[in-house]
């Protein structure tokens, strides 16, 4: 087995992007085939890694328990009084990142498939897509905070252009909004990274370090340093560690997104082209949840515990608020965007419980939401491609016109609303159980939060079924009349080939959740142990 498998996985798209530069712009079709080949190769690679991944590899705070590790010095700089700068190329996977890597590879293939008909400057589009691909793979693998930050910021750039150039009518507005929102979070994150750098030393070399795993061990903190737990430093009257936690949390929470920092999401989704919506919902939102677990909780466990009540509250508010606003939408894509807010609220509620059930449920919910939301956005895109309209009230009786499409929509809707047998069910149920258990397990969350969260399950049934009834059932009646009914052809073979794997995966994980849970279990246990010890 190649020891650099993970590095290959990350930088494969970069090779592809380089290759694309060489191909002359006249050969439009070459780009998408290169992209697809890269995507499929990555999927196979990550699938193989997933299969090889040993379930005992807990990771979290111990380097020897990470797998597919690549750890080499990258930047070493003598900085006089400030000591030696130590930045490593340090990547590896554990149970938190392994499923997300596989998910990313899968969603990327879906997104490439959904980009099949991109006409406008295909070269630029696919090159940017490849850079984005590299960045997300990097984010989920980086274990050096500096490296993480580079990948993290690198995601923004291609997304900005992909929305801003290939998007809908208000694409520039949406692109800038998205960019500024995320940048707002990450700029302050940089300050915390620097603060952490000066507080933490590498126990072997004694130099300051960006190594995240060293940051998770309280013994590595310089006595009296800014983020040292013992020093109890304060800034603006707030304990420094709490402040660090809050800033990092906000940076990631914008990505999740949480209410009230969510308003970039509906605009970005509505304006983004379908493949970018798929990537946004399928991967980008998970970066938020992943960051909270990998960084906020692991580096600032004490502050995380203190904030549990608030995190739970934010989760509950996101669940209910997102669901209610989704109920009031008249645009299908916006409705699904808000349903994402609601479903990601479960992730927050789950992690805030600090129980194994809740955390595993949250992680499972992230994976499940990854391909279910990708499926949902793809389905909206199918409709939009045909008639360039998404108004819920502009369609009626689609089941008669597009029976296969309706079956896909119905399955995706029911899977998303948590029908047993599909993955979202396991995620949501264990988030609720975990949140409920928190009061007896660690006393961090009151039980009413679990009960309030379960109301979201009811509301999700309401908005999905209502939409199903309004758009798909009844006698056909379309805003666009016969022109539309001719344009609304049933799902094509290409679309079917893309849809089926996602739904099958949702079903497979719902029927046999051990497929994912066996891989993430050890990490979840280690994480909960690390945080609550």
């Amino acid at each position, binding site marked *: 087995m190649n020891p650099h498998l993970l590095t290959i996985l990350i930088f494969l798209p970069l090779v592809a992007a380089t290759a694309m530069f060489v191909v002359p712009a006249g050969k439009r079709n070459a780009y998408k085939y290169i992209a697809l080949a890269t995507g499929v190769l990555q999927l196979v690679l990550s699938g193989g890694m997933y299969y090889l991944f040993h379930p005992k590899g807990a990771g979290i705070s111990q380097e020897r328990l990470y797998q597919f590790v690549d750890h080499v010095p990258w930047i070493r700089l003598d900085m006089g009084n400030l000591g030696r700068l130590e930045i490593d190329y340090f990547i590896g996977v554990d149970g938190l990142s392994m499923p997300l890597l596989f998910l990313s590879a899968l969603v990327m293939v879906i997104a490439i498939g959904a980009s099949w008909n991109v006409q406008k400057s295909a070269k630029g589009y696919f090159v940017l897509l490849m850079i984005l691909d590299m960045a997300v793979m990097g984010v989920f693998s980086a274990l050096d905070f500096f490296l993480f930050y580079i990948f993290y910021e690198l995601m923004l750039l291609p997304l900005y252009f992909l929305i801003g150039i290939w998007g809908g009518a208000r694409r520039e507005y949406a692109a800038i*909004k998205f960019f*500024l*929102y995320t940048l707002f979070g990450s700029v302050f994150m940089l300050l915390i990274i620097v603060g952490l750098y000066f507080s933490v030393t590498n126990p072997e070399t004694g130099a300051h370090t960006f190594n995240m795993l060293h940051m998770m061990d309280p013994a590595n903190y310089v006595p009296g340093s800014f983020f040292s737990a013992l020093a109890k430093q304060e800034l603006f009257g707030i304990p420094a560690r709490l402040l660090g936690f809050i800033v990092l949390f906000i940076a990631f929470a914008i990505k999740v997104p949480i*209410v*009230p920092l*969510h*308003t970039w999401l509906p605009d970005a989704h509505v304006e983004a082209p379908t493949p970018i919506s798929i990537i946004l919902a399928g991967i980008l939102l998970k970066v938020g949840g992943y960051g909270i677990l990998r960084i906020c909780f692991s580096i600032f466990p004490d502050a995380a515990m203190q904030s549990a009540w608030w995190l739970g509250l934010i989760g509950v508010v996101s669940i209910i*608020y997102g669901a*209610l*606003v989704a*109920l*009031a*939408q008249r645009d299908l894509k916006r409705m699904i965007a808000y349903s994402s807010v609601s479903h990601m609220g479960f992730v927050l509620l789950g992690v805030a419980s600090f*129980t*194994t*059930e809740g955390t*595993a*449920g949250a992680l499972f919910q992230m994976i499940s939401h990854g391909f279910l939301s990708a499926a949902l956005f793809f389905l909206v895109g199918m409709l939009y491609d045909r008639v360039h309209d998404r108004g819920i009230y502009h369609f009626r*009786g689609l*089941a*008669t016109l597009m029976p296969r499409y309706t079956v896909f929509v119905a399955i995706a809707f*029911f899977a998303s609303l948590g*029908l*047993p*047998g599909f993955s979202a*069910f396991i995620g949501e*149920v*264990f988030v*609720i*159980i975990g949140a*409920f*258990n928190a*009061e*007896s397990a660690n006393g961090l969350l009151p039980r009413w939060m*679990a*009960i309030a969260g*379960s*109301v979201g*399950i*009811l509301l999700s*049934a*309401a908005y999905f*079924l*209502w939409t*199903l*009834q309004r758009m*798909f*059932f*009844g*006698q056909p009646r379309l805003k666009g009349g016969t022109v539309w009914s001719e344009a609304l052809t049933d799902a094509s073979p290409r679309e079917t080939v893309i849809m089926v794997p996602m739904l099958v995966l949702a079903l497979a994980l719902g029927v*046999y*959740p*051990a497929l994912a*849970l*066996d891989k993430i*279990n050890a990490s*979840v*246990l280690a994480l*909960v142990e690390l945080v609550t010890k």
Partner: protein
Amino acid sequence: MTLPTPTYPLLAALATVLLPFIGFLLSAIAGRRAKSGAISITAIALSVVAAGYTFANVWGGEPIHIQWRWFTIGEQAFHVGLLLDNMAVLMLLLVSIVALPVHIYSVAYMKGDPGIHRYWTFLSLFCAAMLGLVIADNLLLMYVCWEIVGFASYLLIGFWFTKDAAVQANKRAFIINRIGDIGFLIGFAILYAGFGTLDINALFGPQGLFATAAGASTAGSTVHGGLPAGWITAAGLAFFLGAMAKSAQFPLHVWLPAAMEGPTSVSSLIHAATMVAAGVFLLARIFPVFDDTVLLVIAATGTVTALIAAYFALTQFDIKKILAFSTVSQLGFMMVGIGIGLYPIALFHLATHAFFKCLLFLCAGAVIHEMQHLNDKHRLGIDPQDIRNMGGLRRYMPVTFATMLIASLALVGFPLTSGYLSKDALLVHAFEWAALHQGAAHIIPYVLAFVSVLTSFYIFRLLAKVFFGTAATPALANGQAKLHDPSAWMVGPMLFLAACSLFPLFTLHPLNDGHVWLLQGIAVSKPWPSLPLLHIVIPVGAAFATLAVAVWVWRWYVGGKYTAKTDGPLYRLSFHQGYLDGLYDRFVVGTVLRFAGVLRWLDTYVVDGLVHGLTTLGRSLASAAGWVDQRIVDGLVRLFGKLAWGVGNVVRRTQTGRLQGYFASLFLVILVILLYHIIVQA
């Protein structure tokens, strides 16, 4: 963990569930090719055989329990497993044996429907989920099946998806059931938090946590695991909420009458053993969790439901609506059975009711089928389900009439029917139970007795209007048209169910419920003494009351002796089903939607407005800075520039290149210095 178990009954039970499931998969794959329903019917028929074998081997013997690891979260393993005890195998047999005639009946009833392949697919899924539910060994698995039952019923109720009423109804059914699902979910979350397991045997079995803890403490059932005292009560109420939605208890019953929009054969299955039975079964399964408070709530809710539903049934004209409310009312009876602590009697009534209610619907379906044909053939434009358009049908459809009469007699609890056994057992025990209780609990048995009278009234009214009197449809009355009993595919199942609605299926003592094998198999000790007198008074009284009502209805509807006052508030309240649908639409749905609208407004104008405000602020700050930059910072720079230019402009005049000028300047400078020295230093 896994007990050594006899394999064959276990495999048979597994087959009972998996066969319809395989039927579902095969039908789904076959798509339009599966029109005949052969797959589904074969599957359910084999399922009946397997269930029969399981039943024969397990009933009365030791329970069989087997489980396999499903997945692990943290250190907690979750299992899939089978728990085959008397209760489970009874339900297994009941569900499959009621489902079989419905399948066969559907062949004729659904013939020619363009979407029939979907029908068979959904029907198989429906049966598989319900069969899975009854043998699930833990609450999580049960919950999975519970929701899939709801999902399948959603698909079946909305089977005619181009009909608006149907898709409204299935949405309503699913959402109301979701309310119940939340109850179920919270219920088992509480138990999991308290006991760390969801295994039914470990919790509620004879050696389960509830049983041992209750035995250990003398003060009755004070089990709370690690939870504060009130939480077990809360869990009981939460589970009951689940059962209320599934088993259509007031005020969550509204989905069931609305669900009549589905095909009648589906209604018969939903009302008999497959959907609404799940709630009652759940309560029986987890019975030890309920404390006295919850039991009283259950009994009271059941009573109210029984009364109100029977009251609504009195004035309906839609033949299926009458039967739907009748089901709701009977489910109320079963709830009372649970509430008074005798869940075996509730299950007994569930079993007898399954047969006769299924039969009632199949008969109604036969009538509707014929009326529909009549309507289509003669272009009458009448509602084929409206009993006002029927009348005198017994002459045309004697078999249908006879079977429906048997089912109706079972429903009212007339001697020699199965309904007599279960209903009287319920009533008698309710009276005995009430004797031990104080206050309002006393009313419960009297209300139930009154509901029995109402039951007789509405079902005899239905019979009278449909089968007696003269035909209301002119085409039928003047002999142009003929109706007839349906084909053997439909009559066969009806005859079979009619046979099952009579006493011999349950006991050979037609008038005594003390020897019913079902009650002997699932026995609980009755915590009160029997009152022998009641065992005579109530059956006799009930039989006489039934006869009296029958005579009264006859005189009213056939003899035309009385007319109903149709403008009184009581009549209208009943006719409009308590205006509940409107109330829910206006107050619950309306409120939620308005609130959602307000939130959407807030989201757009306040939350996002804040972001925009920040943007505006940023931009105005930027333009202010721009102004400052241009006017002040750059102004200063330009000022210096101008100054320099001005100075230069002045100074350059000195650089004229004319020697006289330079000398003049030189002279002036020297003069100034000299003057300075002279004046200042003097």
